[in-house]
């Protein structure tokens, strides 16, 4: 801590007038934009190299997810895999070699990107909607509504969400798609969002401007939407970026376990699952999809760090 260093001056200290140009302090710059949390956050984030690194990586990942054909050398949906190339070494046009079925590893990874990214985004939409509803009503209305909603949250929170997803996906074994797996993950992942929001709303509710709005006779729902929610959303955004990474890991884990997506869907988890049997002889077919998965998760985790630090002045001090 820098303020631990004792001041060289002791006793009462009165600054000489010329040291404190009062004129400058009094002059209010009317046209200056008033600073708020979001502007401060942006100013803080853009100064950090990891913001730009993770941002670029995320943009690249999203572009790959949207137009995989720009990057892939072959289209794994139309191109037949050749068994004669099973576990083959890299050749021209196939930079990462071939899988056990003789498919191009690189193109499968490129086309698998959209699966991971889609699951990540669908899950955070689900967890944010459910988390906002439960967290906002519980925190804002309090009383028995809070008690009831919080108990429901506790129940969902008490089942580790990957285990819950394993059960759901086992039951839905005939309907395995990006949508069902996102539902299976999101259905049990929302309570952490709700808890964060509830705690923040309880804090914001104490503010003077809320009391002022109440005194002015503003309706409850309007106070919630206009004043409370916008001021308590920051920690939710920070946790959402990290949840996105967690959802991508969850999908890969479920696919790796064989209860995730069906074999016809390109997914890094599926590829890792297929490659695991040959790890001793052909570790490369396992390494590449794992690397793609880890880099994607890493990018979102890094971004989550930046967002959290930027939106939370307390976290900024820890840096």
């Amino acid at each position, binding site marked *: *801590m820098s303020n*631990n260093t004792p001041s060289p001056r002791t006793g009462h200290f009165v600054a000489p007038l010329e040291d404190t140009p009062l004129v400058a302090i009094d002059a209010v710059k009317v046209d200056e934009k008033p600073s708020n949390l979001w502007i401060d956050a942006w100013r803080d984030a853009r100064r950090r190299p990891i913001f730009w690194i993770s941002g670029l990586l995320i943009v690249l990942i999203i572009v790959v997810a949207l137009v995989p054909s720009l990057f892939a050398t072959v289209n794994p949906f139309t191109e037949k895999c050749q068994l004669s190339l099973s576990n083959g070494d890299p050749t021209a046009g196939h930079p990462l070699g071939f899988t056990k079925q003789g498919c191009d590893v690189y193109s499968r990874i490129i086309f698998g990107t959209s699966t991971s990214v889609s699951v990540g985004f669908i899950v955070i939409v689900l967890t944010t909607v459910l988390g906002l509803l439960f967290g906002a009503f519980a925190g804002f209305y309090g009383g028995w509504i809070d008690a009831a909603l919080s*108990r*429901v949250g*506790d*129940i*969902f929170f*008490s*089942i*580790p969400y*990957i*285990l*819950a997803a*394993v*059960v*759901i996906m*086992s*039951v*839905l*074994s*005939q309907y395995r798609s990006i949508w069902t797996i996102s539902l299976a993950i999101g259905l049990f992942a929302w309570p952490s969002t709700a808890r964060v929001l509830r705690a923040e709303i309880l804090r914001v509710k104490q503010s003077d401007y809320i009391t002022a709005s109440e005194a002015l006779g503003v309706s409850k729902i309007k106070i919630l939407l206009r004043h409370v929610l916008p001021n308590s959303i920051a920690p939710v955004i920070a946790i959402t970026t990290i949840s996105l*990474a967690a959802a991508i*890991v969850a999908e*890969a*884990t479920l696919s*790796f*376990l*064989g*209860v995730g997506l069906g074999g016809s869907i390109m997914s890094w988890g599926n590829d*890792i699952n297929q490659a*695991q049997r040959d*790890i*001793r002889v052909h*570790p490369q077919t*396992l390494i590449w999809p*794992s690397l793609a*998965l*880890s*880099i994607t*998760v*890493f990018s979102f*985790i*890094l971004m989550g*760090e930046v967002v959290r630090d930027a939106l939370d002045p307390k*976290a900024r001090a*820890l*840096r």
Partner: protein
Amino acid sequence: MAGYIFRRVLQAIPVFFGTTFLIYFMVFAMPGDPIVALFGDKTPNPAVIEQLRQQYHLDQPFIVQYILYIGGIFRGDFGTSFSGEPVTQILARTFPVTIRLAVLALVFQSVAGIAVGLVSGLRKGKLFDSSALVVSLILISLPIFVIAYVAQYVFGVQLGWARTTVGSGAPLQDLILPAIVLASVSFAQIVRLTRSSVIETSGLDFVRTAYSKGLSRKRIVPVHILRNSLIPVVTYLATDFGVLLVGATVTEGIFNVPGVGNTLYQAIIRGEGPTVVSFVTVMVLLYLVVNLVVDLLYGLLDPRIRLVK
């Protein structure tokens, strides 16, 4: 204290019924035949289906099924596995192995995590701190099955330092590598938590007082700073038990550790739905009990917690 225990146990009751109901509901209230759905594309023996129907009382209305199922749990009956062995019998055999693995992992992650976190926090912004931050972010980004396979390949296959699969009886030296893999997931979180907690504590008045009293750093760091920084870390270890359970499932599966997690893992990859449901229920109940016990211990250790309504 008695009031606190009573309140906390009372709170656990709706959660117990809620979680078991939720799991049961997810499986047996789905349209269609739940037993057939659980087997996916496999077609089980009609005799097995008939036996499972009886076991889960599928001829009764849903709510009666659930009550009978809960009654079974209270009598210690978690159903029968796919191979016909009672789940409780499998648990008796596999549980000690998982406990050994989990304790080993807990020791590794807390000792290493707290040590690295403490040094990081004391040297905020220095080289050690920034490298620890980068390493912990990378570790957080690696899914546990990737870490497990890389460890198995590098240390087991390439270097030959450890056995790639655990032998029967799960001797302790075979469990070291799986335990390190299992510990790596939470290690990073513990480092970060300890670090921020140490930084926060170091700035508090009582630490400044200790310094100004002329106490040595050797005494201040362990007694004043570390001890007071550990509270959030211990809390984290308890809530992290769920992560440990999921991690144990994957790690035990990959290293073939004969524990509870491996039983679940094998059931999942073989698509033996009913066994999956039984073991997930067992794990969720375990998670509830651990959280309850930790909360009660907290009330014992920290009076502030038991006084807060």
